[in-house]
Protein backbone atom coordinates (compact mmCIF):
# COMPACT_ATOMS: atom_id res chain seq x y z
CA UNK A 1 0.00 0.00 0.00
CA UNK A 2 1.25 3.43 -0.88
CA UNK A 3 1.58 5.75 2.06
CA UNK A 4 0.81 9.43 1.97
CA UNK A 5 4.51 10.24 1.75
CA UNK A 6 5.16 8.47 -1.57
CA UNK A 7 1.81 9.29 -3.10
CA UNK A 8 1.83 11.07 -6.43
CA UNK A 9 -1.29 13.02 -7.39
CA UNK A 10 -2.92 11.96 -10.64
CA UNK A 11 -6.39 13.49 -10.64
CA UNK A 12 -4.87 16.90 -10.05
CA UNK A 13 -1.68 16.25 -12.03
CA UNK A 14 -2.54 18.70 -14.81
CA UNK A 15 -3.80 21.42 -12.57
CA UNK A 16 -1.56 24.44 -12.54
CA UNK A 17 -0.11 23.64 -15.95
CA UNK A 18 -0.74 26.17 -18.71
CA UNK A 19 -3.88 25.63 -20.79
CA UNK A 20 -4.85 22.57 -18.77
CA UNK A 21 -8.49 23.21 -19.72
CA UNK A 22 -8.00 23.17 -23.49
CA UNK A 23 -7.79 20.06 -25.65
CA UNK A 24 -4.36 20.98 -26.88
CA UNK A 25 -3.08 21.43 -23.34
CA UNK A 26 -4.74 18.26 -22.14
CA UNK A 27 -3.34 16.16 -24.97
CA UNK A 28 0.13 17.57 -24.41
CA UNK A 29 -0.05 16.00 -20.94
CA UNK A 30 -1.12 12.62 -22.28
CA UNK A 31 -4.86 13.19 -22.49
CA UNK A 32 -7.25 11.05 -24.53
CA UNK A 33 -4.84 8.12 -24.56
CA UNK A 34 -6.96 6.03 -22.21
CA UNK A 35 -10.11 6.40 -24.27
CA UNK A 36 -8.26 5.41 -27.45
CA UNK A 37 -7.16 2.20 -25.73
CA UNK A 38 -10.79 1.44 -24.90
CA UNK A 39 -13.24 2.47 -27.60
CA UNK A 40 -13.36 -0.06 -30.41
CA UNK A 41 -10.50 -2.06 -28.86
CA UNK A 42 -12.20 -3.60 -25.83
CA UNK A 43 -15.69 -5.02 -25.50
CA UNK A 44 -17.98 -2.80 -23.37
CA UNK A 45 -18.53 -5.59 -20.87
CA UNK A 46 -14.77 -6.00 -20.41
CA UNK A 47 -14.48 -2.28 -19.72
CA UNK A 48 -17.20 -2.55 -17.09
CA UNK A 49 -15.51 -5.65 -15.68
CA UNK A 50 -12.21 -3.76 -15.34
CA UNK A 51 -13.87 -0.96 -13.41
CA UNK A 52 -15.62 -3.52 -11.22
CA UNK A 53 -12.37 -5.31 -10.45
CA UNK A 54 -10.67 -2.02 -9.55
CA UNK A 55 -13.02 -1.64 -6.59
CA UNK A 56 -13.80 1.96 -7.54
CA UNK A 57 -16.54 3.35 -5.31
CA UNK A 58 -18.57 6.36 -6.37
CA UNK A 59 -17.10 9.66 -5.19
CA UNK A 60 -20.40 11.52 -4.99
CA UNK A 61 -21.08 10.72 -1.35
CA UNK A 62 -22.68 7.30 -1.02
CA UNK A 63 -19.61 5.30 -2.06
CA UNK A 64 -21.50 2.68 -4.03
CA UNK A 65 -19.26 0.46 -6.20
CA UNK A 66 -19.32 2.00 -9.68
CA UNK A 67 -18.77 -1.16 -11.74
CA UNK A 68 -21.51 -2.93 -9.80
CA UNK A 69 -23.89 -0.05 -10.45
CA UNK A 70 -23.28 -0.46 -14.18
CA UNK A 71 -24.09 -4.16 -14.07
CA UNK A 72 -27.60 -3.35 -12.80
CA UNK A 73 -28.51 -2.17 -16.29
CA UNK A 74 -30.81 -4.72 -17.93
CA UNK A 75 -28.65 -6.99 -20.12
CA UNK A 76 -29.18 -6.80 -23.88
CA UNK A 77 -31.50 -3.83 -23.57
CA UNK A 78 -32.44 -2.49 -27.01
CA UNK A 79 -31.75 1.06 -25.74
CA UNK A 80 -31.61 3.88 -25.47
CA UNK A 81 -29.59 3.82 -22.27
CA UNK A 82 -28.80 7.21 -20.79
CA UNK A 83 -25.79 8.36 -18.82
CA UNK A 84 -26.07 11.36 -16.51
CA UNK A 85 -23.01 12.98 -15.09
CA UNK A 86 -23.86 14.42 -11.72
CA UNK A 87 -22.10 17.78 -11.60
CA UNK A 88 -24.53 19.34 -9.15
CA UNK A 89 -22.29 19.30 -6.12
CA UNK A 90 -23.96 21.62 -3.63
CA UNK A 91 -22.98 20.08 -0.31
CA UNK A 92 -21.51 22.85 1.84
CA UNK A 93 -17.76 22.38 2.09
CA UNK A 94 -17.49 20.49 -1.20
CA UNK A 95 -15.77 21.89 -4.28
CA UNK A 96 -13.61 19.09 -5.72
CA UNK A 97 -15.78 18.70 -8.82
CA UNK A 98 -15.58 22.42 -9.50
CA UNK A 99 -11.78 22.28 -9.47
CA UNK A 100 -11.80 19.41 -11.98
CA UNK A 101 -14.40 21.02 -14.23
CA UNK A 102 -12.74 24.42 -14.27
CA UNK A 103 -9.15 23.33 -14.65
CA UNK A 104 -9.28 19.91 -16.28
CA UNK A 105 -12.66 19.49 -18.02
CA UNK A 106 -11.27 17.10 -20.63
CA UNK A 107 -10.26 14.60 -17.97
CA UNK A 108 -13.89 14.48 -16.87
CA UNK A 109 -15.10 14.15 -20.46
CA UNK A 110 -12.64 11.37 -21.19
CA UNK A 111 -13.81 9.41 -18.15
CA UNK A 112 -17.37 10.05 -19.20
CA UNK A 113 -16.71 8.70 -22.70
CA UNK A 114 -15.24 5.49 -21.30
CA UNK A 115 -18.15 5.11 -18.88
CA UNK A 116 -20.68 5.66 -21.68
CA UNK A 117 -18.94 3.11 -23.87
CA UNK A 118 -18.93 0.55 -21.05
CA UNK A 119 -22.65 1.01 -20.48
CA UNK A 120 -23.64 1.10 -24.19
CA UNK A 121 -24.92 4.62 -23.83
CA UNK A 122 -25.09 6.85 -26.88
CA UNK A 123 -26.64 9.97 -25.35
CA UNK A 124 -25.25 11.46 -22.18
CA UNK A 125 -26.33 14.46 -20.14
CA UNK A 126 -23.86 16.51 -18.16
CA UNK A 127 -25.98 18.03 -15.39
CA UNK A 128 -24.13 21.01 -13.92
CA UNK A 129 -25.33 23.39 -11.24
CA UNK A 130 -25.77 26.96 -12.40
CA UNK A 131 -23.55 28.47 -9.70
CA UNK A 132 -20.43 27.43 -11.62
CA UNK A 133 -20.22 29.87 -14.55
CA UNK A 134 -16.54 29.29 -15.25
CA UNK A 135 -16.88 25.50 -15.14
CA UNK A 136 -19.88 25.81 -17.45
CA UNK A 137 -18.01 27.96 -19.94
CA UNK A 138 -14.97 25.70 -20.00
CA UNK A 139 -16.94 22.47 -20.18
CA UNK A 140 -19.06 23.84 -23.01
CA UNK A 141 -15.90 24.81 -24.88
CA UNK A 142 -14.31 21.43 -24.14
CA UNK A 143 -17.34 19.56 -25.51
CA UNK A 144 -17.23 21.69 -28.65
CA UNK A 145 -13.51 20.96 -29.07
CA UNK A 146 -14.29 17.24 -28.83
CA UNK A 147 -16.99 17.49 -31.49
CA UNK A 148 -14.64 19.44 -33.74
CA UNK A 149 -11.92 16.82 -33.34
CA UNK A 150 -14.27 13.89 -33.96
CA UNK A 151 -14.01 12.66 -30.36
CA UNK A 152 -17.76 13.08 -29.95
CA UNK A 153 -20.61 12.67 -32.37
CA UNK A 154 -20.84 9.93 -34.95
CA UNK A 155 -18.14 7.27 -35.29
CA UNK A 156 -15.83 8.63 -32.66
CA UNK A 157 -12.10 7.94 -33.13
CA UNK A 158 -13.07 6.35 -36.44
CA UNK A 159 -14.91 3.46 -34.75
CA UNK A 160 -18.56 2.55 -35.19
CA UNK A 161 -19.37 3.91 -31.72
CA UNK A 162 -21.30 7.19 -31.58
CA UNK A 163 -21.81 9.37 -28.54
CA UNK A 164 -23.46 12.73 -27.87
CA UNK A 165 -22.85 14.68 -24.66
CA UNK A 166 -25.25 17.52 -23.82
CA UNK A 167 -24.50 20.03 -21.12
CA UNK A 168 -27.58 20.80 -19.02
CA UNK A 169 -27.67 23.58 -16.43
CA UNK A 170 -29.46 23.30 -13.14
CA UNK A 171 -31.08 26.24 -11.39
CA UNK A 172 -29.98 26.35 -7.79
CA UNK A 173 -31.39 23.37 -5.91
CA UNK A 174 -29.35 21.07 -3.68
CA UNK A 175 -31.76 18.21 -4.19
CA UNK A 176 -30.74 17.94 -7.86
CA UNK A 177 -27.62 16.18 -6.61
CA UNK A 178 -29.78 13.25 -5.49
CA UNK A 179 -29.81 10.92 -8.48
CA UNK A 180 -33.56 10.62 -8.98
CA UNK A 181 -34.02 14.32 -8.19
CA UNK A 182 -31.46 15.03 -10.90
CA UNK A 183 -33.38 12.86 -13.35
CA UNK A 184 -36.69 14.58 -12.61
CA UNK A 185 -35.01 17.95 -13.02
CA UNK A 186 -33.45 16.88 -16.30
CA UNK A 187 -36.90 15.90 -17.52
CA UNK A 188 -38.05 19.47 -16.93
CA UNK A 189 -39.90 18.98 -13.69
CA UNK A 190 -39.41 20.03 -10.09
CA UNK A 191 -36.58 17.95 -8.64
CA UNK A 192 -38.69 15.68 -6.48
CA UNK A 193 -36.80 12.47 -5.80
CA UNK A 194 -38.54 9.31 -6.92
CA UNK A 195 -39.49 6.35 -4.79
CA UNK A 196 -37.10 3.46 -5.42
CA UNK A 197 -37.47 0.84 -6.80
CA UNK A 198 -37.45 1.02 -9.74
CA UNK A 199 -33.85 2.10 -9.58
CA UNK A 200 -32.53 4.40 -12.33
CA UNK A 201 -30.54 1.52 -13.80
CA UNK A 202 -33.87 -0.09 -14.68
CA UNK A 203 -36.07 2.96 -15.17
CA UNK A 204 -34.37 6.34 -15.01
CA UNK A 205 -34.26 9.37 -17.29
CA UNK A 206 -37.15 9.42 -19.73
CA UNK A 207 -38.21 6.03 -18.29
CA UNK A 208 -35.17 4.33 -19.79
CA UNK A 209 -32.25 2.60 -18.06
CA UNK A 210 -29.91 5.28 -16.76
CA UNK A 211 -26.55 5.47 -15.04
CA UNK A 212 -25.85 8.45 -12.79
CA UNK A 213 -22.18 8.95 -11.90
CA UNK A 214 -20.26 11.72 -10.19
CA UNK A 215 -17.62 13.94 -11.84
CA UNK A 216 -14.70 12.69 -9.75
CA UNK A 217 -15.80 9.09 -10.36
CA UNK A 218 -15.54 9.71 -14.11
CA UNK A 219 -12.03 11.13 -13.65
CA UNK A 220 -11.09 7.99 -11.66
CA UNK A 221 -12.40 5.77 -14.48
CA UNK A 222 -10.07 7.56 -16.88
CA UNK A 223 -7.12 7.05 -14.53
CA UNK A 224 -7.87 3.33 -14.16
CA UNK A 225 -7.51 2.87 -17.92
CA UNK A 226 -4.36 4.97 -18.00
CA UNK A 227 -2.58 3.25 -15.14
CA UNK A 228 -4.30 -0.06 -14.60
CA UNK A 229 -6.27 -1.83 -11.93
CA UNK A 230 -3.17 -2.88 -9.98
CA UNK A 231 -2.10 0.73 -9.59
CA UNK A 232 -5.58 1.73 -8.43
CA UNK A 233 -5.76 -1.08 -5.90
CA UNK A 234 -2.33 -0.26 -4.52
CA UNK A 235 -3.72 2.98 -3.08
CA UNK A 236 -6.14 3.21 -0.19
CA UNK A 237 -7.42 0.79 2.39
CA UNK A 238 -8.28 -2.91 1.86
CA UNK A 239 -11.54 -4.33 3.25
CA UNK A 240 -11.81 -4.78 6.99
CA UNK A 241 -11.73 -8.56 7.56
CA UNK A 242 -14.05 -8.15 10.56
CA UNK A 243 -16.69 -6.35 8.53
CA UNK A 244 -18.22 -8.51 5.81
CA UNK A 245 -20.02 -5.50 4.34
CA UNK A 246 -16.83 -3.50 3.81
CA UNK A 247 -15.82 -3.40 0.16
CA UNK A 248 -12.55 -1.57 0.82
CA UNK A 249 -11.68 1.99 -0.15
CA UNK A 250 -9.31 2.03 -3.09
CA UNK A 251 -7.76 4.78 -5.11
CA UNK A 252 -6.86 8.42 -4.84
CA UNK A 253 -9.41 10.88 -3.49
CA UNK A 254 -9.85 14.62 -3.66
CA UNK A 255 -10.21 16.19 -0.22
CA UNK A 256 -11.59 19.68 0.16
CA UNK A 257 -10.15 21.49 3.14
CA UNK A 258 -11.88 24.65 4.30
CA UNK A 259 -12.87 26.61 7.37
CA UNK A 260 -10.36 27.67 10.00
CA UNK A 261 -7.29 26.39 8.26
CA UNK A 262 -4.19 28.18 7.04
CA UNK A 263 -4.19 26.79 3.53
CA UNK A 264 -7.69 25.85 2.45
CA UNK A 265 -7.87 24.04 -0.87
CA UNK A 266 -8.53 20.88 -2.82
CA UNK A 267 -5.86 18.23 -2.22
CA UNK A 268 -5.37 14.76 -3.57
CA UNK A 269 -4.42 12.02 -1.14
CA UNK A 270 -4.94 8.27 -0.78
CA UNK A 271 -8.19 7.13 0.78
CA UNK A 272 -7.53 6.45 4.42
CA UNK A 273 -5.50 9.55 5.26
CA UNK A 274 -6.35 10.82 8.74
CA UNK A 275 -7.80 14.25 9.50
CA UNK A 276 -4.64 15.19 11.42
CA UNK A 277 -2.39 14.22 8.51
CA UNK A 278 -4.56 16.16 6.12
CA UNK A 279 -4.52 19.29 8.24
CA UNK A 280 -0.81 19.14 9.05
CA UNK A 281 0.51 18.02 5.71
CA UNK A 282 -1.71 19.99 3.39
CA UNK A 283 -3.72 22.51 5.38
CA UNK A 284 -0.80 24.22 7.09
CA UNK A 285 -2.37 23.88 10.53
CA UNK A 286 -5.17 25.76 12.22
CA UNK A 287 -5.28 29.47 11.41
CA UNK A 288 -4.11 32.19 13.77
CA UNK A 289 -2.31 29.57 15.84
CA UNK A 290 -5.54 28.56 17.50
CA UNK A 291 -6.61 25.13 18.62
CA UNK A 292 -8.97 22.98 16.61
CA UNK A 293 -12.32 22.29 18.18
CA UNK A 294 -14.10 20.07 15.68
CA UNK A 295 -14.41 19.24 12.03
CA UNK A 296 -16.98 18.00 9.58
CA UNK A 297 -15.38 14.99 7.89
CA UNK A 298 -17.28 14.91 4.63
CA UNK A 299 -19.76 17.63 3.90
CA UNK A 300 -22.29 19.09 6.28
CA UNK A 301 -24.62 16.06 6.28
CA UNK A 302 -22.04 13.66 7.69
CA UNK A 303 -22.00 14.82 11.31
CA UNK A 304 -19.04 16.08 13.28
CA UNK A 305 -15.72 14.89 14.70
CA UNK A 306 -14.30 16.30 17.94
CA UNK A 307 -10.68 17.46 18.03
CA UNK A 308 -9.68 14.31 19.95
CA UNK A 309 -11.12 12.20 17.12
CA UNK A 310 -8.92 13.66 14.40
CA UNK A 311 -7.04 10.38 14.07
CA UNK A 312 -10.12 9.18 12.20
CA UNK A 313 -9.11 7.72 8.82
CA UNK A 314 -10.90 9.30 5.90
CA UNK A 315 -11.96 6.22 3.98
CA UNK A 316 -15.48 5.05 3.27
CA UNK A 317 -15.77 3.32 6.63
CA UNK A 318 -13.61 5.53 8.85
CA UNK A 319 -15.97 8.31 9.96
CA UNK A 320 -18.70 5.73 10.62
CA UNK A 321 -16.56 4.35 13.46
CA UNK A 322 -16.65 7.76 15.12
CA UNK A 323 -20.39 8.19 15.09
CA UNK A 324 -20.62 9.99 11.78
CA UNK A 325 -22.76 8.98 8.83
CA UNK A 326 -19.79 8.28 6.56
CA UNK A 327 -17.12 9.78 4.36
CA UNK A 328 -19.60 11.60 2.15
CA UNK A 329 -17.82 13.93 -0.23
CA UNK A 330 -14.61 14.03 1.84
CA UNK A 331 -15.00 17.76 2.38
CA UNK A 332 -13.28 18.56 5.66
CA UNK A 333 -14.49 21.78 7.26
CA UNK A 334 -12.36 22.64 10.28
CA UNK A 335 -13.65 24.73 13.17
CA UNK A 336 -11.38 26.37 15.74
CA UNK A 337 -11.93 26.80 19.45
CA UNK A 338 -13.89 30.06 19.03
CA UNK A 339 -16.80 28.38 17.26
CA UNK A 340 -19.98 27.86 19.22
CA UNK A 341 -21.78 24.66 18.38
CA UNK A 342 -25.14 26.39 18.45
CA UNK A 343 -24.01 28.48 15.46
CA UNK A 344 -22.86 25.46 13.54
CA UNK A 345 -26.12 23.63 14.25
CA UNK A 346 -28.14 26.67 13.30
CA UNK A 347 -26.26 26.99 10.01
CA UNK A 348 -26.70 23.35 9.07
CA UNK A 349 -30.37 23.25 10.06
CA UNK A 350 -31.08 26.41 8.07
CA UNK A 351 -29.37 24.92 5.05
CA UNK A 352 -31.42 21.74 5.10
CA UNK A 353 -34.72 23.46 5.75
CA UNK A 354 -34.02 25.77 2.82
CA UNK A 355 -33.11 22.88 0.56
CA UNK A 356 -35.74 20.32 1.54
CA UNK A 357 -37.82 19.71 -1.57
CA UNK A 358 -40.97 19.59 0.54
CA UNK A 359 -42.20 16.29 -0.74
CA UNK A 360 -42.04 14.25 2.49
CA UNK A 361 -43.65 15.58 5.65
CA UNK A 362 -40.97 14.47 8.19
CA UNK A 363 -38.26 16.25 6.23
CA UNK A 364 -40.22 19.37 5.30
CA UNK A 365 -41.62 19.92 8.78
CA UNK A 366 -38.72 18.47 10.78
CA UNK A 367 -36.00 20.56 9.19
CA UNK A 368 -37.89 23.83 9.59
CA UNK A 369 -38.92 22.92 13.13
CA UNK A 370 -35.30 22.31 14.06
CA UNK A 371 -34.34 25.64 12.49
CA UNK A 372 -37.03 27.50 14.44
CA UNK A 373 -35.96 25.86 17.68
CA UNK A 374 -32.32 26.67 17.09
CA UNK A 375 -33.18 30.25 16.13
CA UNK A 376 -34.91 30.61 19.47
CA UNK A 377 -32.06 29.00 21.40
CA UNK A 378 -29.57 31.23 19.62
CA UNK A 379 -31.66 34.28 20.48
CA UNK A 380 -31.35 33.46 24.17
CA UNK A 381 -34.83 32.07 24.60
CA UNK A 382 -33.98 28.40 24.71
CA UNK A 383 -35.10 25.94 27.35
CA UNK A 384 -33.23 22.81 28.35
CA UNK A 385 -36.06 20.62 27.15
CA UNK A 386 -35.57 22.08 23.65
CA UNK A 387 -32.47 19.92 23.41
CA UNK A 388 -34.56 16.80 24.01
CA UNK A 389 -36.94 17.98 21.36
CA UNK A 390 -34.06 18.53 18.93
CA UNK A 391 -32.74 15.06 19.68
CA UNK A 392 -36.18 13.67 19.00
CA UNK A 393 -36.38 15.51 15.68
CA UNK A 394 -32.93 14.19 14.81
CA UNK A 395 -33.99 10.64 15.63
CA UNK A 396 -37.25 10.71 13.74
CA UNK A 397 -36.94 12.76 10.56
CA UNK A 398 -34.32 10.76 8.80
CA UNK A 399 -34.63 7.06 9.17
CA UNK A 400 -33.46 5.60 5.92
CA UNK A 401 -35.15 3.82 4.40
CA UNK A 402 -38.64 4.33 5.64
CA UNK A 403 -39.92 7.74 6.54
CA UNK A 404 -38.69 9.75 3.57
CA UNK A 405 -38.07 9.15 -0.12
CA UNK A 406 -34.47 10.33 -0.27
CA UNK A 407 -31.57 10.87 2.09
CA UNK A 408 -31.86 14.63 2.63
CA UNK A 409 -33.67 14.22 5.94
CA UNK A 410 -31.03 11.74 7.03
CA UNK A 411 -28.38 14.30 6.11
CA UNK A 412 -30.20 16.92 8.17
CA UNK A 413 -30.54 14.58 11.14
CA UNK A 414 -26.89 13.57 11.48
CA UNK A 415 -25.46 16.96 12.47
CA UNK A 416 -28.27 17.26 15.03
CA UNK A 417 -27.89 13.78 16.55
CA UNK A 418 -24.16 13.88 16.43
CA UNK A 419 -23.67 17.32 17.94
CA UNK A 420 -26.21 16.72 20.67
CA UNK A 421 -24.34 13.58 21.61
CA UNK A 422 -20.87 15.06 21.52
CA UNK A 423 -21.50 18.63 22.68
CA UNK A 424 -24.65 18.47 24.81
CA UNK A 425 -22.85 20.03 27.77
CA UNK A 426 -21.87 23.07 25.76
CA UNK A 427 -25.37 23.54 24.40
CA UNK A 428 -26.85 23.23 27.90
CA UNK A 429 -24.41 25.80 29.16
CA UNK A 430 -25.32 28.17 26.38
CA UNK A 431 -29.00 27.91 27.25
CA UNK A 432 -28.35 28.34 30.98
CA UNK A 433 -26.17 31.35 30.32
CA UNK A 434 -28.45 33.12 27.88
CA UNK A 435 -31.72 32.27 29.59
CA UNK A 436 -30.65 31.70 33.21
CA UNK A 437 -34.01 31.46 34.94
CA UNK A 438 -35.71 29.81 31.99
CA UNK A 439 -38.32 32.52 32.05
CA UNK A 440 -37.45 34.38 28.88
CA UNK A 441 -40.36 34.91 26.62
CA UNK A 442 -40.93 31.66 24.78
CA UNK A 443 -43.20 32.97 22.11
CA UNK A 444 -42.17 31.18 18.94
CA UNK A 445 -40.06 33.16 16.53
CA UNK A 446 -41.92 34.14 13.38
CA UNK A 447 -42.20 31.51 10.69
CA UNK A 448 -39.12 31.40 8.53
CA UNK A 449 -39.16 33.25 5.29
CA UNK A 450 -37.48 30.51 3.39
CA UNK A 451 -39.09 30.60 0.02
CA UNK A 452 -39.88 34.25 -0.48
CA UNK A 453 -36.24 35.22 -0.54
CA UNK A 454 -35.41 34.76 -4.19
Amino acid at each position, binding site marked *: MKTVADFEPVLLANIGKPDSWTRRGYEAYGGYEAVRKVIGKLAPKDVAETVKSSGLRGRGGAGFPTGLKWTFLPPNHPGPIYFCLNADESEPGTFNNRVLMELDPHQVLEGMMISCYATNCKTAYYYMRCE*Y*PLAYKRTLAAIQECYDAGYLGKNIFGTDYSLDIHLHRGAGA*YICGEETGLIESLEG*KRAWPRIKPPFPAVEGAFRKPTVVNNVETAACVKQIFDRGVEWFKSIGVPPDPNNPRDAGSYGPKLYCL*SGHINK*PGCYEAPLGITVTELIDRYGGGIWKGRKAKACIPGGISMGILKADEFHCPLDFNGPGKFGCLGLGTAAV*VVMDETVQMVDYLMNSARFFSHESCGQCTPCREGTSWATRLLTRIKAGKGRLKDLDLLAEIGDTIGIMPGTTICGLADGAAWPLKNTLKKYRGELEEYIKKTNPDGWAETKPVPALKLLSIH
Partner: protein
Amino acid sequence: MAERILTDKMIEEIRAFIPRYPSKQAVTVPALHIVNEHLRCVPRQAVVEIAQILELHPSQVQDTLTFYGYFKQDAPGGKCRVWVCRSIACALRGADELLEHLEHKLHVKAGETTPDGRISLEYAECLGACEHAPCILANDDLHQSVSPEQAEQLVASVK
Protein backbone atom coordinates in the same frame (compact mmCIF):
# COMPACT_ATOMS: atom_id res chain seq x y z
CA MET B 1 -54.79 38.00 -25.77
CA ALA B 2 -51.69 39.37 -24.15
CA GLU B 3 -48.95 40.73 -26.31
CA ARG B 4 -46.19 38.30 -27.22
CA ILE B 5 -43.21 38.62 -24.92
CA LEU B 6 -40.69 36.12 -26.33
CA THR B 7 -38.64 37.50 -29.20
CA ASP B 8 -37.91 35.45 -32.31
CA LYS B 9 -34.35 35.09 -31.09
CA MET B 10 -35.43 33.58 -27.78
CA ILE B 11 -37.83 31.20 -29.52
CA GLU B 12 -35.08 30.14 -31.87
CA GLU B 13 -32.70 29.52 -28.96
CA ILE B 14 -35.33 27.45 -27.15
CA ARG B 15 -36.13 25.42 -30.27
CA ALA B 16 -32.43 24.64 -30.72
CA PHE B 17 -32.53 22.65 -27.48
CA ILE B 18 -35.42 20.40 -28.55
CA PRO B 19 -33.44 17.84 -30.62
CA ARG B 20 -31.14 17.14 -27.66
CA TYR B 21 -33.81 15.42 -25.57
CA PRO B 22 -36.32 12.65 -26.19
CA SER B 23 -39.08 14.78 -24.65
CA LYS B 24 -39.94 18.43 -25.19
CA GLN B 25 -40.63 18.90 -21.50
CA ALA B 26 -36.92 18.41 -20.81
CA VAL B 27 -36.30 21.79 -22.46
CA THR B 28 -38.23 23.56 -19.67
CA VAL B 29 -35.22 24.52 -17.53
CA PRO B 30 -33.04 25.54 -20.51
CA ALA B 31 -35.98 27.64 -21.80
CA LEU B 32 -36.40 29.32 -18.42
CA HIS B 33 -32.67 30.08 -18.42
CA ILE B 34 -32.88 31.63 -21.89
CA VAL B 35 -35.81 33.87 -21.00
CA ASN B 36 -34.29 34.78 -17.65
CA GLU B 37 -31.05 35.77 -19.35
CA HIS B 38 -32.82 38.12 -21.76
CA LEU B 39 -35.48 39.61 -19.49
CA ARG B 40 -33.87 39.09 -16.05
CA CYS B 41 -37.12 37.40 -15.01
CA VAL B 42 -39.70 34.98 -16.38
CA PRO B 43 -43.09 36.73 -16.42
CA ARG B 44 -46.32 34.74 -16.53
CA GLN B 45 -46.85 35.52 -20.18
CA ALA B 46 -43.43 34.03 -20.96
CA VAL B 47 -44.45 30.88 -19.08
CA VAL B 48 -47.52 30.57 -21.33
CA GLU B 49 -45.42 31.01 -24.44
CA ILE B 50 -42.74 28.52 -23.33
CA ALA B 51 -45.55 26.04 -22.67
CA GLN B 52 -46.84 26.58 -26.20
CA ILE B 53 -43.44 25.90 -27.74
CA LEU B 54 -42.90 22.79 -25.64
CA GLU B 55 -46.49 21.55 -25.99
CA LEU B 56 -47.09 21.63 -22.27
CA HIS B 57 -49.74 23.06 -20.03
CA PRO B 58 -48.61 26.44 -18.62
CA SER B 59 -49.03 25.06 -15.11
CA GLN B 60 -46.34 22.47 -15.80
CA VAL B 61 -43.84 25.18 -16.69
CA GLN B 62 -44.99 27.34 -13.79
CA ASP B 63 -44.62 24.39 -11.41
CA THR B 64 -41.02 23.86 -12.50
CA LEU B 65 -40.20 27.57 -12.38
CA THR B 66 -41.36 28.03 -8.81
CA PHE B 67 -39.25 25.12 -7.59
CA TYR B 68 -35.91 26.62 -8.56
CA GLY B 69 -34.63 29.56 -6.56
CA TYR B 70 -32.67 30.93 -9.48
CA PHE B 71 -35.64 32.23 -11.47
CA LYS B 72 -37.51 35.40 -10.71
CA GLN B 73 -41.04 35.97 -11.85
CA ASP B 74 -42.69 39.06 -10.50
CA ALA B 75 -40.03 41.69 -11.01
CA PRO B 76 -36.78 41.70 -12.96
CA GLY B 77 -33.65 40.98 -10.99
CA GLY B 78 -30.91 43.58 -10.85
CA LYS B 79 -28.45 43.99 -13.69
CA CYS B 80 -25.93 42.41 -11.40
CA ARG B 81 -26.97 39.57 -9.13
CA VAL B 82 -24.70 39.53 -6.13
CA TRP B 83 -24.76 36.18 -4.37
CA VAL B 84 -23.20 36.09 -0.93
CA CYS B 85 -22.47 32.53 0.15
CA ARG B 86 -23.62 31.73 3.68
CA SER B 87 -22.78 28.03 3.94
CA ILE B 88 -20.77 26.74 6.87
CA ALA B 89 -17.32 27.18 5.33
CA CYS B 90 -18.04 30.81 4.43
CA ALA B 91 -19.91 31.47 7.68
CA LEU B 92 -16.82 30.41 9.64
CA ARG B 93 -14.90 33.19 7.91
CA GLY B 94 -17.42 35.97 8.29
CA ALA B 95 -20.05 35.51 5.58
CA ASP B 96 -22.98 36.55 7.77
CA GLU B 97 -21.27 39.83 8.64
CA LEU B 98 -20.50 40.36 4.96
CA LEU B 99 -24.13 39.93 3.97
CA GLU B 100 -25.26 42.23 6.76
CA HIS B 101 -22.73 44.84 5.71
CA LEU B 102 -24.01 44.80 2.13
CA GLU B 103 -27.63 44.96 3.28
CA HIS B 104 -26.75 48.02 5.26
CA LYS B 105 -24.82 49.67 2.44
CA LEU B 106 -27.37 48.97 -0.28
CA HIS B 107 -30.42 49.56 1.91
CA VAL B 108 -32.00 46.32 0.75
CA LYS B 109 -32.56 42.96 2.39
CA ALA B 110 -31.21 39.75 0.90
CA GLY B 111 -33.57 38.81 -1.90
CA GLU B 112 -34.35 42.39 -2.90
CA THR B 113 -33.20 44.58 -5.77
CA THR B 114 -31.98 48.14 -5.34
CA PRO B 115 -34.55 50.72 -6.49
CA ASP B 116 -32.32 51.77 -9.38
CA GLY B 117 -32.35 48.18 -10.66
CA ARG B 118 -28.58 47.93 -10.49
CA ILE B 119 -28.07 45.18 -7.95
CA SER B 120 -30.01 42.23 -6.61
CA LEU B 121 -28.55 41.18 -3.30
CA GLU B 122 -29.05 37.49 -2.68
CA TYR B 123 -27.64 34.79 -0.49
CA ALA B 124 -26.47 31.46 -1.81
CA GLU B 125 -26.67 28.28 0.22
CA CYS B 126 -23.29 27.17 -1.12
CA LEU B 127 -21.28 28.51 -4.04
CA GLY B 128 -18.88 25.59 -3.92
CA ALA B 129 -15.87 27.84 -3.53
CA CYS B 130 -15.20 27.07 0.13
CA GLU B 131 -11.42 27.40 -0.23
CA HIS B 132 -11.96 31.09 -0.99
CA ALA B 133 -14.33 31.78 1.90
CA PRO B 134 -16.08 34.09 2.27
CA CYS B 135 -16.95 34.39 -1.38
CA ILE B 136 -19.33 36.32 -3.58
CA LEU B 137 -20.56 35.47 -7.05
CA ALA B 138 -21.43 38.62 -8.95
CA ASN B 139 -23.12 37.52 -12.18
CA ASP B 140 -20.39 35.32 -13.68
CA ASP B 141 -17.47 36.50 -11.59
CA LEU B 142 -16.37 34.78 -8.42
CA HIS B 143 -14.81 37.08 -5.85
CA GLN B 144 -12.60 35.34 -3.33
CA SER B 145 -11.87 35.93 0.34
CA VAL B 146 -13.96 39.09 0.29
CA SER B 147 -13.67 41.58 3.14
CA PRO B 148 -16.58 43.94 3.88
CA GLU B 149 -14.57 46.81 2.35
CA GLN B 150 -13.89 44.85 -0.83
CA ALA B 151 -17.56 43.93 -1.05
CA GLU B 152 -18.45 47.58 -0.76
CA GLN B 153 -16.07 48.46 -3.59
CA LEU B 154 -17.47 45.63 -5.64
CA VAL B 155 -21.07 46.81 -5.43
CA ALA B 156 -19.98 50.41 -6.02
CA SER B 157 -18.20 49.42 -9.22
CA VAL B 158 -21.33 47.85 -10.74
CA LYS B 159 -22.56 50.21 -13.43
